[in-house]
């Protein structure tokens, strides 16, 4: 019965909607897609408009090589850490299990540059730790934090939660019978993991790693501070130091290409995942209760991840911040700016994502454009917006410049984060069957009316989720804000970056900490919500 009604729904949803022209909802979706498409096309236009090669080819190749190498390292490390953590948390019970379930996602509250500041300071060759080690222990770490390897470690600590969350969902939803079949066919528990569970979860692994790599390519603050010259740092530098938007855009084009590739990987992985989600057995997984050394090991592993991703860097930043007297008025203004931009970005982005969710059924390209925006680094998005910005600047009166600048910045956030907001909204809308919308229509509502009185109220919880995700990401955002912000408009991320570039790390600590403090409550709320959800609900 369930099967046949599901099939009927699938058939209904495939039927074409009534209106043959674009409806009001579809125009709104088109507008949302336009916001996402504007900076993407801006990148290409700017890159082509400049002098033949504003950036020497060998520089571009060097940056690209560094970016690629960093992406591979981070991909490998996050895959290992995230998968191990997810497997332990899903399949085993140990002290602290229910805490780590959600707490392992908390490093998402910390911007990668905050981790970079803390670890660079902690492992500085002239820092207290290394001095003490050389003095008391008589040896030094064979390790330079300001290197590709160091940056990869720092970014992996920041981004492993993307893999952890994807793999946790996959392991929770995995087929019990597949695991049992493997055991019956002679696999040990270890072999069962490597030969059945892991291959089954490959789509989720690809999707999670793709997200971590997207973030790696998008990172500016950490790489810049650790003196690793990637394409993204190159984009910001060629704009801010050399004043060359064309050069910046030429560096952004390969990033756009990489984004498209990662997006393709993530999307095709997702298709695979939804495919076997249909075959889930509703039987509980065989959970193993750990004792003794193994239990302690599991707790320590999870604790170490959380410490490296959040507690240690936040603690170190706190310690170094306490040693300096802060510029309180400047901090307060920046915190207010960050909160306002976070709120404005969340409202606008969620609104546009809602428009996409409601109206894009016949405009699949609109959703793809929004996804490409998500995969594209913020620095590239900002450079892409410079061309349309120049057109706008020409027509607005000087007095309005400040507000127009803020609007552009919100546009950049929306273009970058619309797809991130779209995902939970789409999941919420999945509760609305096509016939519920049709029922609204036959009960006298227009298409727009059915959208707002049926679809939106049913999916309203997901709007909050979407808004919070955008809010957290805007708080942590650095490069786009750096490029597009109006003169003298500082967010917490911007002043942290300014202090850090002046090597005033103690001062940079406090704004970074404030970002973590502001982002932590919504992150806790979101990760607890994800941890409580069962697969398929």
């Amino acid at each position, binding site marked *: *019965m369930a099967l046949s009604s599901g099939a009927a729904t699938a058939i209904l949803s495939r039927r074409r909607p*009534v209106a043959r022209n674009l409806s009001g909802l579809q125009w709104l979706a088109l507008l949302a897609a336009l916001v996402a498409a504007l900076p993407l096309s801006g990148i290409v236009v700017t890159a082509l408009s400049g002098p033949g090669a504003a950036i020497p080819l060998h520089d571009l190749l060097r940056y690209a090589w560094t970016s690629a190498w960093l992406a591979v390292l981070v991909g490998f490390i996050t895959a290992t850490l995230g998968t191990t953590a997810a497997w332990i948390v899903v399949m085993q019970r140990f002290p602290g299990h229910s805490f780590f379930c959600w707490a392992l996602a908390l490093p998402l509250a910390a911007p990668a540059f905050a981790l970079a500041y803390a670890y660079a300071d902690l492992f500085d060759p002239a820092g207290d730790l290394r001095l003490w080690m050389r003095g008391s222990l008589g040896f030094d770490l064979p390790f330079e934090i300001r290197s590709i390897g160091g940056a990869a470690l720092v970014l992996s600590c920041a981004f492993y939660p993307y893999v952890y969350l994807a793999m946790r969902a996959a392991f929770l939803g995995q087929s019990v019978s597949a695991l049992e079949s493997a055991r019956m066919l002679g696999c040990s528990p270890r072999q069962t993991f490597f030969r059945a569970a892991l291959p089954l979860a490959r789509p989720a692994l690809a999707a999670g790693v793709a997200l971590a790599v997207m973030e790696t390519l998008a990172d500016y603050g950490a790489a810049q501070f650790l003196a690793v010259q990637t394409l993204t740092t190159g984009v910001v530098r060629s704009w801010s130091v050399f004043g060359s938007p064309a050069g910046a855009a030429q560096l952004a084009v390969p990033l756009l290409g990489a984004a498209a590739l990662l997006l393709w990987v993530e999307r095709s992985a997702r298709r695979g995942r939804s495919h076997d989600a249909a075959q889930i057995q509703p039987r509980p997984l065989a959970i193993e209760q750990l004792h003794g050394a193994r239990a302690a090991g599991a707790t320590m592993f999870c604790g170490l991840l959380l410490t490296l991703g959040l507690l240690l860097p936040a603690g170190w930043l706190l310690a170094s911040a306490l040693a300096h007297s802060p510029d309180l008025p400047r901090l307060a203004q920046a915190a207010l700016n960050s909160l306002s931009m976070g709120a404005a970005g969340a409202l606008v982005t969620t609104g546009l994502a809602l428009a996409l969710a409601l109206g894009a059924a016949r405009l699949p390209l609109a959703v793809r454009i929004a996804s490409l925006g998500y995969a594209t680094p913020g620095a590239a998005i900002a450079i892409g917006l410079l061309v349309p910005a120049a057109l706008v600047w020409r027509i607005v009166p000087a007095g309005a410049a400040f507000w127009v600048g803020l609007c552009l910045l919100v546009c950049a956030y929306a273009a970058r984060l619309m797809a991130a907001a779209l995902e939970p909204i789409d999941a919420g809308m999945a509760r609305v069957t096509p016939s519920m919308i*049709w*029922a609204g*229509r*036959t*009960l*006298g509502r227009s298409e727009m009316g059915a959208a707002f009185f*049926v679809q939106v*109220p049913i999916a309203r919880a997901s709007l909050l989720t979407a808004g919070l995700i955008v809010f957290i990401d805007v708080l942590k955002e650095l490069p786009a804000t750096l490029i597009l912000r109006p003169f003298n408009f500082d967010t917490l991320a911007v002043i942290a970056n300014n202090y850090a570039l002046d090597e005033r790390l103690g001062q940079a600590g406090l704004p970074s900490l404030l970002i973590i403090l502001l982002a932590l409550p919504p992150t806790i709320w979101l990760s607890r919500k994800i941890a409580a959800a069962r697969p398929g609900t």
Partner: protein
Amino acid sequence: MTLPRSPVIAASAVSKRYAGAPAVQEASLALRAGRITCLLGPSGCGKTTLLRIIAGLERADEGEIRAENRIIEARNVFVPPEARRIGFVFQDLALFPHLSVLNNVAFGLRALGREERRSRAMTLLERFHLADRADAWPHSLSGGEQQRVAIARALAPGPAALLLDEPFSGLDGDLRAQVRDFVLSGLRESAAAVLVVTHDPEEAMLLGDELVLMARGRIVQSGTPEECYFRPRSAAAARLLGRANLVPAMVTGGVASCAFGMFPAGGFGNGPAVAMLRPDALQLEPCGIAAEVIDVRFGGSHYEVRLRAQGQEAVMHLGKEPPTPGEEVRIGIEPSRAALLPQEVAAD
């Protein structure tokens, strides 16, 4: 004898194709106020598509639909579903999970004031014996209750016509019959013209004042349940309403004769034809035709007896005292349950 009122909904020659494959072909039907029409056909015959076209959830490629003498669908006319005054009950019911039972029913009443909405919705809930569940959430109701809420909700705005798509398919056995009787009386109280889509022949005949039979996108017959059951116009129509033995027959001088007996041929001219014998048209008759019993099965309310006579096979229903396989019985035909079909439509 009441005056023939003009139909509330009149569809004429409606056609629809999906990706080139015809779903509905030149379908015409009329729905009258206060009458229940059942649209019966096998899965995938296009009946749901026809229903959705009438409701405005789907556009027709050809044809015209009038509602209360106003054109609502034609080549250049399309009245959107919200302006058609047609209620729809979906197969999956589509109750709004975010609204209470009362607010589900009141959803379509936004033209009214707050108090009036509430009282109108309560009136409907009372009619469907749901008043005590007014503040419940849809997911906490039983299947039968959900069913009734869906119908009350569709009736609330006072539609001129109500369309129900397989309304009882989610319910089983006894409950299904109960809900059906219950809904029938609720529907009778509203003056709406009602169209019920179903693939269950028994349900269609019990529920419908009129039947419309559909097969492969075409309407093959319409009329009262008795007409359709006893006087099918084709083999396809005959089979839709239940088991039918189709046996070659010869008409001579107003009498049809076949392997299992003879019966009056009505207006049929002399020549070959096909006899349509329902299983209960065959009866034991001491001086009837001899037939061999091939198989006997027990079916609850009757025994199903498979017979062979003159190389033809047929199924007979017997109430009691079944013969044993291999036995020879003598049988005849009850004329009121037999019909003749022209040879060319018997092949459908």
